[in-house]
C-alpha cells in the first residue's frame, strides 16, 4: 500500500485527463473505463483515443499499441526474476506491469528479492487509482476543465525523479547510466522523430545498459 500510494497519486490526474479526452473522442463512460481496465497502459490509451477521434482503422491502432507497449517485455523480464513465489501465482502479476510499478518494484526490492504479495498490493493500489480516475474523468467530462488536471501530470515525473535520486547517490554507475540513457532518448527522439516513444525507450534501455556492463562493479548489490 505505502509503495503504491505515490503511483496512485501520480496516476489519478492522468487517468482523469484520459477519461475526459476519451469522452471527447466519442467513447462512452463504459468504453473509456473498459480501456483502462483491459489495456492499462497510459501512453497507448492516449494514442488510441487520438487515433479513434481521427478515424484511424482497427489494425493500425492495434499495431501502434503493440509497438508502444512492447517495452513491458523488458520490464517483465527483470521482474519475473525478482518476484518470489509459485510460478502461476507470480505469472498472474504480469497483468499489472507498468513503467511505474516496474521502477518502484525493482528499485525497492530487497537484495534477496521481492514478495509477490508486496507487488500485488502496490499494483492493485495503482490499478484502482487508474480505474477510478478514468471513470471520474469520463463521468464528469463536461464539468472538469482539462487545463486544471493538465498541470498535475508532473506527478509521475516527480515519482521517477524521487525513485532515481537515492540510488544515483549511492552508486555513481546508476547515475551515469540514467543520465546517458536520458541523453540517448533525447538524441533519438530529435534525430528520428518518427520513432515511437516505446522504441526510443527500448533502444535507450538496451543500449545504455549494455554500456553499463563495462563499468567497474564497485559495491553494486543485486
Amino acid at each position, binding site marked *: 500500500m505505502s509503495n503504491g500510494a505515490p503511483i496512485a497519486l501520480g496516476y489519478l490526474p492522468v487517468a482523469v485527463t484520459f477519461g475526459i479526452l476519451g469522452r471527447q473522442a466519442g467513447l462512452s463512460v463504459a468504453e473509456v473505463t473498459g480501456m483502462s481496465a483491459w489495456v492499462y497502459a497510459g501512453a497507448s490509451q492516449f494514442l488510441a483515443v487520438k487515433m479513434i477521434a481521427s478515424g484511424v482503422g*482497427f489494425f493500425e491502432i492495434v499495431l501502434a499499441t503493440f509497438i508502444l507497449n512492447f517495452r513491458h517485455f523488458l*520490464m*517483465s523480464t527483470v521482474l*519475473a526474476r525478482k518476484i518470489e513465489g509459485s510460478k502461476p501465482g507470480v505469472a498472474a502479476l504480469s497483468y499489472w506491469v507498468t513503467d511505474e510499478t516496474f521502477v518502484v518494484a525493482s528499485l525497492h526490492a530487497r537484495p534477496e528479492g521481492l514478495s509477490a504479495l508486496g507487488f500485488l498490493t502496490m499494483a492493485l493500489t495503482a490499478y484502482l487509482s487508474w480505474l477510478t480516475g478514468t471513470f471520474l474523468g469520463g463521468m464528469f467530462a463536461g464539468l472538469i476543465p482539462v487545463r486544471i488536471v493538465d498541470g498535475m501530470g508532473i506527478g509521475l515525473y*516527480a*515519482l521517477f525523479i*524521487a525513485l532515481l535520486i537515492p540510488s544515483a547517490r549511492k552508486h555513481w554507475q546508476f547515475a551515469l547510466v540514467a543520465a546517458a*540513457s536520458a541523453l540517448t532518448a533525447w538524441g533519438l527522439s530529435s534525430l528520428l522523430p518518427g520513432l515511437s516513444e516505446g522504441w526510443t525507450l527500448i533502444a535507450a*534501455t538496451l543500449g545504455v545498459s549494455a554500456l553499463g556492463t563495462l563499468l567497474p562493479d564497485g559495491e553494486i548489490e543485486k
Partner: protein
Amino acid sequence: MIWLLLAGMFLVTYIPRLVPFLFARQLDLPPWVQKWLKFFPYAALGALIFPGILTAVPGRPVLAAGAGILATVGALFIRNITVIVVLAIAAVLLLQGLGMP
C-alpha cells in the same frame, strides 16, 4: 466495434507482459546478461524522465523543468516519495496560476 478494438489492444499489450514470466524465471543467464538486466531500471528511468518531462505540462516546458529541478532537490533531502509527488504537483499548480511559461 470499440469493444473489439479494446480486446485487440488488450492482447497485444498483455502478451509481452506475460511471456517473460513464463520462461525467463528459472532461466540460467550468464553473468554479463544478469549485469545487463541490473541496469535496466536505471536506464529506463533516465529515458522516462527526459525529454518527456519537458512536455509534462502542455505548452509550459520551463514550468515543467522547474518542477523537475524542485523534485530533484527535494529528493536529496526527503526520502518519502509521496511527499515529493505532492510537492511537485503543488508547485506546478501554484506557478501555473501565476502564469509561468
